[in-house]
């Protein structure tokens, strides 16, 4: 697993209302949207509201409940996705602590009746916020 690379360094941006950061898959192979079960975005310890979170990959933007049935778009191992949400952050010269959790289903590892393995990975990096 590759949790240390989830947050792409120096990709935090804000438009004053929404913050976004590029994220990388902590796994060795591509997974479809349906296996991306959720994420958490926190800036300086403040979480973005869950219903404000959006996931952008392959040029399309999804709410997490829209990813549930998405087997057409895949998160490829060398691609960045973008995680965004409503959380305040100043685009100043200050360093901000960014925390991202991602929860993934691993669709080929069956661990029980009608159940496959899920993994929850976390990364924390510090960076400045750029204006968008």
């Amino acid at each position, binding site marked *: 697993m*590759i949790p240390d690379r989830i947050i792409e360094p120096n990709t935090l941006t804000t438009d004053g209302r929404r913050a976004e950061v590029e994220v990388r898959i902590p796994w060795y*192979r591509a997974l479809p949207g349906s296996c991306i079960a959720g994420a958490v975005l926190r800036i300086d310890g403040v979480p973005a509201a869950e219903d404000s979170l959006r996931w952008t990959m392959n040029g399309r933007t999804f709410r997490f409940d829209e990813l549930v049935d998405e087997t057409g778009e895949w998160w490829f191992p*060398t691609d960045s996705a973008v995680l965004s949400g409503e959380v305040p952050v100043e685009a100043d010269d200050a360093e901000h602590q960014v925390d991202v959790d991602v929860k993934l289903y691993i*669709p080929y590892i069956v661990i029980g009746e009608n159940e496959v393995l899920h993994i929850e990975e976390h990364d924390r990096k510090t960076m400045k916020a750029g204006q968008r």
Partner: protein
Amino acid sequence: MNHALGTPIQGVTLYSFTRAFHAREYDLEGLIRKVAAEGYGPGLEVIGFSSFRGFPEIDDRFAGWFRDLVDEVGLVTTSLAVNADIGIHRDRLLTQDELIDYMRRQIVAAAKLGFPIARVQISLTPDSMEQLAPIAEEHGVTLALEVHADQYASHPRILALRDRYEQVGSPFLGFTMDWGATVSGFAPSLLEAYRRRGASEELLAKVVDLWNGFYEQGPPADQAEHGQRFGAFIGLAAQNGRPDLGIDFGINGTGLFGPARVDDWLEIMPWIRHVHGKFFGIDEQGEEPSVPVRDLIALLVDNGYNGAISSEYEGWHWNHWQSPFDIIAGEQAVQRSAAEAAGSRMITDAAEARAILDAHLRKAVRA
């Protein structure tokens, strides 16, 4: 002599270079050229969903580009690792028809890309393998189901597959032997990684003792015993003030370091079509300290194995302080030395590898 000694084909899976690919240090073409230039081949194994964007859909133009590249650099495609993504829908598992179709598309991709083997996994049942046999035959792709820790050759699920293979009688059904099922020690490089995460020497010694105890007992008889062992690692971490390491100890201690003995592979030896030369590191003496590489090579040579061995370096999960490239070269040197010690050799010439692999895959079990 009852039979000729085997001459396994040297090779590598690109999985070994996961961190370098994921870090965008090498793209697929760059990695393939590196494998050829550094002599990790001639055998080349690729994981479809790791390396090919849009897999399993492969268009003609991409397939042509890939095959031309492999030919140009003098490699030989051995196995395409495919996945049975039974849980791809969040709310339900695939139906049997959907699963067979999902696998069919990947078998077609393997054929199109020039891989004679598709590595499949334990989630496929004997019934699924029987259903897939004619599809494999139609496309000329051998299905080699991976025997990986926490399973092992004499595990009831593997024996059930073997028995079904025997009934079906298709030369297109077989196994991939993964050396992770027959590990002889807890990998020192992983202990070093825990040390770097602040684990005490006392705790690490206890982890080693716990694993060694399981090694003495042999592999777990069933999933319940596997679960108990997993729980023992979690308990050990908690009792020693590092509950944060417990799941990691359990996953690696039971899922990567399988404690079966080398000769357990004899249960399925005639059906072994491909090998994952799973390993975790190379020590100062140039040896693999926790995988009995020399004994495994001797077993394969003695039993006339002429398929490929993909060096599969798994230490990349935790070893961020050493380059995988030197470590893999070191493990392949051990393989070659072991084959010579067993009175044979590893095949490193591409043309010879192609001919031997072709003959190996056409030889039906007990034909």
